[in-house]
């Protein structure tokens, strides 16, 4: 389990995370929802130390990190080893072929053999239906294909948690579906994921847990059933505000 406690993060004068505490369970899919600018991405990035909150603690079953203290290289390495991020704009390395995008990190960082990482990469590519693209460059692929490859890149590091920051926001609906199907499958296989998304249908179908963030604070932390079927007034407003439902 990942536990965040009393997280405070400010940009300039604006407090984007206000003493926020939340848990992310092992082997489950947690979906973070909330309006734009609510602090969802900042929260997610804190888990991977891409953002450094001023105070608060991050703990795994066997690791503790205090954001207010200097973080050693070893601790930062160990924390990042547990998580891998999938970005909204996928951020593949354009200078590397698809297969190198997947193998370079396990080879360089984890010291695995070329043979081992390539075998794994081919398996992952087959899993996402992109086997024949191994030797292409990212720029020769569609956005949806690139995002599927960035999921392979994250999986190749064998993280305990995959963090996904609006993984389909930059994709058109058809490409989005390809990516969501893969995430759904991963979720069923018990891969722990923490997903920031605006896609409610997807959230409803994959989430084991919903966290609703607004204004740097957590307004809801519970089951999808409760969130979607017995929403509070604020959540009801949020849900109706983002859908085209006639009945709102």
């Amino acid at each position: 389990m990942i536990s965040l406690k009393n997280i405070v993060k400010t940009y300039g004068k604006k407090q984007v995370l206000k003493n926020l505490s939340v848990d992310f369970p092992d082997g489950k899919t947690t979906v973070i929802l909330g309006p734009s600018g609510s602090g969802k991405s900042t929260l997610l990035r804190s888990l991977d130390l891409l953002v450094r909150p001023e105070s608060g603690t991050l703990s795994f079953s066997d690791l503790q990190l205090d954001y207010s203290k200097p973080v050693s290289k070893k601790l930062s390495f160990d924390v990042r080893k547990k998580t891998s991020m999938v970005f909204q704009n996928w951020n593949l390395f354009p200078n590397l072929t698809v297969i190198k995008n997947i193998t370079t990190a396990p080879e360089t960082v984890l010291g695995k053999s070329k043979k081992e990482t390539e075998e794994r990469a081919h398996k992952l590519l087959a899993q996402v239906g992109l086997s024949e693209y191994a030797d292409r460059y990212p720029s020769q692929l569609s956005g949806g294909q690139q995002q599927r490859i960035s999921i392979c890149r994250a999986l190749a590091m064998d993280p305990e948690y995959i963090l996904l920051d609006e993984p389909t926001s930059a994709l058109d609906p058809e490409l989005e579906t390809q990516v969501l199907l893969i995430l759904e499958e991963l979720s069923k296989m018990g891969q722990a994921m923490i997903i920031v998304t605006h896609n409610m249908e997807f959230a409803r179908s994959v989430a084991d847990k919903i966290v609703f963030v607004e204004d740097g604070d957590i307004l809801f932390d519970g089951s999808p059933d409760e969130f979607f079927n017995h929403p509070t007034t604020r959540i009801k407003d949020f849900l109706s505000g983002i859908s085209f439902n006639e009945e709102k």
Partner: protein
Amino acid sequence: MWHTIITSLPAMISAMLQYTIPLAIISFIFGLILAVLTALIKFIQPSENKLIKYPWLVLRAIANFYVWLFRSTPLLVQLFIIFFGLPSAGVQLSPFIAAVIGFSLNTGAYASETIRSALLSVPQDQWDAAFTLNFTTKQTLMKIVLPQAVRIALPPLSNSFIGLVKDTSLASSITILEMFQVSQQITAKNFQPLLMYSLAAFLYAVVCSLLTLLQHYLERRTSKYVKGSEA
């Protein structure tokens, strides 16, 4: 006219091969090494560790001073100080060494800014992606950022190299018998300045045209991952 050209060409080409081209290549290699080091010192944010941070800030101050100094003074003046000036301070250098030092330092100062801007042009997203995969700063630089920066830096670095080839003509002023100096000497004998200096200009243009072709080749090689480059 053709007779003059044919009799002068061997001496000029030999001066080009003996001085102009070696001066340009050696100085560019040293200049490039200096430029990469200077750019990295200015580009990389030191860690908070005081044992690293303060020495790094001192290095950065030196790098800033160096770039300022060599971009703020004329190359010819720099060559004069190194070759004619330094002996009074007890440093006696051969003309060739003095020229290499002057050209390298000058090229390094300009090229360091080219490389720094190329490094800055690689998006922060690439660093984030590398850090989430647990790459160190050094690994990120070597495997991800520098290969992308090289592609961006190639056209302006080619400018520097081509500029340097032509600037080697200034070495004539510190007694080096490079190509332009030889053309001057021949002119002093045959009194045909228009022909001789045009011939020198033509030979510089030939070398620079070859470099332009080399630039195109390198650009194609380093751009193969960019959309539409295979066309």
